[in-house]
């Protein structure tokens, strides 16, 4: 702040406070329960804040955005996550989204695919095609992208434990379309650490699983240069019940763990850092979210330049995707979810996101209907083209409140980094259940606040309607499970099974020798080895994982 004015500002602040009056009987805190002051002023800014902490967009430390012109130069990608049932049905939804003006694809896989279990495995019972698309082999992947030229779209794949297998399948579909890997663009979620922390979909223990993540980062940096091999994700940490600061801190700690692992592999930081991307939640507490996005960019830039010595400015940039908070949606009066999603989307835009998924109002019930998805996409279009919020870069920059809250988020994250370091790092923290416990505590605290009405959710614990609204719900045909299993059996019957065996064996051998798994996985999927089979070949070397259970 400007020092000559400080005394005068302090006087005026005291004067204002004297006549402040009385608050309503309410606790003024964020959804993460950070207490908020009644007013912010230059007194809340740090001494050296402007150039050091806030600065200009496109300039270090990027608090105000990673590009000089931000959304004036290029709007965010409107990327709606979609997938259900069979590859054929999801392919139709993709064509629909592209026709509606969607500008990127985002694949939701079903639980068996996410857990690397084939559709005919007994563990997949009842889950095939339920919450995403079922992919067993390259044959399904070919259908999924039929009629979609892979050099003309960017595709995000929400896949973690078997991420390298699906990545290899995507590369193989490209080959079949005549699109070379260097022309493919997209993102793998491939953030296995947050699986142990929050989403809980894993195959093997954290150590060897991180090695697989490094394999794909290394492979992409050499062969698929326009691909983001990992999207370091806070989204699921937040959905599991964390606070905003925990989401920020745990996600960035995961990011540092991947960077360390790549450096240990002998890679140079600037060879992979520009392609690391992030994925944040945008929850309902508007300013807390905006502050979180701004703090995230600043912390990452400082870490990459100062801790890791990255010289390429692109390595300092935190590029991120955002999704509105699924957990903020209510079953009661579901149309209100449109409003929540719009506000959350606005926070993401003002926070400087590069791409955005807006949830549909009916997602508490089931996967969204086409109509609900259309409203969600239109919400982004209204923000982009009607509201004018994109007319200037970082319109909230310089707000005393937003800057002060941004500083507070950064301080909170730094405190957690210290704690995580004391535990020995992220993986020991996972093994000790540290993150899981922190998140469970925060989730329970929030539930208590709801139960005693300290926090209000409209339609749930206040402003409750007598009648429940009926909205149409997407139904997944149970026949899908049977037809997917039949299709899988056809693939197994038609392929060269000896070749599959040989290639899976080569993969296991390569993994035992600590060679990069990607080329071997690619060979296996080209021969139509399934997600389950390829994963099993690696799991036979890596082993299984069971988390420490506590309540």
């Amino acid at each position, binding site marked *: 702040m400007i020092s000559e004015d400080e005394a005068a500002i302090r006087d005026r602040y005291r004067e204002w406070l004297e006549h402040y009056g009385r608050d309503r009987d309410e606790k003024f805190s964020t959804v993460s329960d950070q207490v908020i002051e009644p007013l912010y002023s230059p007194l809340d800014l740090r001494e050296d804040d402007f150039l050091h902490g806030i600065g200009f967009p496109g300039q270090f430390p990027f608090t105000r955005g990673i590009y000089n012109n931000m959304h004036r130069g290029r709007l965010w990608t409107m990327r709606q996550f979609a997938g259900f049932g069979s590859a054929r049905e999801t392919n139709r939804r993709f064509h629909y989204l592209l026709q509606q003006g969607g500008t990127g694809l985002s694949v939701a896989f079903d*639980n*068996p695919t*996410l*857990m690397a*279990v084939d559709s005919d495995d*007994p*563990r*997949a*019972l*009842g*889950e095939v095609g*339920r*919450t995403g698309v079922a992919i067993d082999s390259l044959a399904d992947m070919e259908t999924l992208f039929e009629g979609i030229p892979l050099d003309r779209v960017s595709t995000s794949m929400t896949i973690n434990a078997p991420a390298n297998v699906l990545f290899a399948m995507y590369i193989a579909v490209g080959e079949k379309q005549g699109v070379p890997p260097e022309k493919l663009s997209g993102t793998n979620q491939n953030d296995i650490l947050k*699986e142990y922390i929050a*989403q*809980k*979909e894993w195959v093997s223990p954290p150590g060897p699983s991180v090695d697989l993540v490094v394999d794909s980062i290394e492979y992409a940096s050499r062969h698929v240069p326009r691909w983001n091999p990992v999207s370091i994700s806070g989204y699921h940490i937040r*959905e*599991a*019940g964390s606070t905003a600061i925990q989401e920020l801190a745990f996600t960035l700690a995961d990011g540092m763990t991947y960077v360390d692992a790549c450096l240990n592999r002998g890679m140079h930081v600037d060879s992979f850092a520009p392609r690391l991307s992030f994925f944040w939640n945008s929850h309902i507490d508007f300013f807390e979210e905006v502050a979180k996005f701004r703090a995230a960019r600043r912390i990452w830039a400082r870490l990459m330049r100062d801790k890791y010595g990255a010289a390429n400015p692109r390595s300092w940039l935190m590029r991120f995707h955002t999704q509105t908070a699924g*957990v903020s949606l*209510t*079953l*009661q009066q579901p149309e209100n979810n449109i409003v929540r999603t719009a506000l959350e989307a606005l926070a993401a835009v003002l926070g400087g996101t590069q791409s955005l998924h807006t949830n549909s109002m009916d997602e*508490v*019930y*089931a*996967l969204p209907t086409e109509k609900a998805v259309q409203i969600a996409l239109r919400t982004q279009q209204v923000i982009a083209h009607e509201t004018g919020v994109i007319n200037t870069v970082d319109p909230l920059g310089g707000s005393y409140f937003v800057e002060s809250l941004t500083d507070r988020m950064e301080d909170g994250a730094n405190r957690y980094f210290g704690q995580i370091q004391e535990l020995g790092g992220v993986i020991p923290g996972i093994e000790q259940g540290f993150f899981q416990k922190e*998140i*469970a505590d925060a*989730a*329970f605290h929030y*539930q*208590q606040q*709801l*139960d005693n009405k300290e926090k209000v*959710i409209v339609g*749930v*614990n206040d402003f409750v309607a007598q009648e*429940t609204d009926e909205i149409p*719900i997407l139904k*997944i045909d*149970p026949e899908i499970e049977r037809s997917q299993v039949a299709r899988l059996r056809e693939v197994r019957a038609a392929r060269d099974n000896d070749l599959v065996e040989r290639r899976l064996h080569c993969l296991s051998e390569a993994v035992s020798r600590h060679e990069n798994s990607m080329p071997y996985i690619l060979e296996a999927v080209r021969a139509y080895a399934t997600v389950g089979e390829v994963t099993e070949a690696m799991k036979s070397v890596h082993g299984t994982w*069971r*988390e420490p*259970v506590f*309540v």
Partner: protein
Amino acid sequence: MVEPVSGRRIRILMAKAGLDGHDRGVKVVARALRDAGVEVIYTGLHQTPEQVVSAAVQEDVDGIGLSLLSGAHMTLFPRILELLKERGAADIVVFGGGTIPQEDAEILKQAGVAQIFTPGTSTDTIVGWVKERFGGRTAAA
């Protein structure tokens, strides 16, 4: 302390079945029940219906609280009811919660699921239901 006249505390197995990793709800409910004096055993994630039923029988619980956010509720609830019958343990009460549409919840209740709690339910409501359902049952036995 929720202590029925028999002197035994209510015992509930909180369970996650299938490949579903969403454990926020199950943990919040487990903790609320425990704080209310219920003995809670949590299965951990990724259990098969067989594992859930074996744990319920071994732990001699009064009820199973099954949490499902995977869309597989129409398969996994009936399967657990069926296995309980096979094991001669049909007296174990099955209830649950998660992203379960109302229409499906009604069908499940007719099939023998005692109660389905959907998103937005307060923990007080769930604790109250458990106390009434199991407190009374054990006391009468």
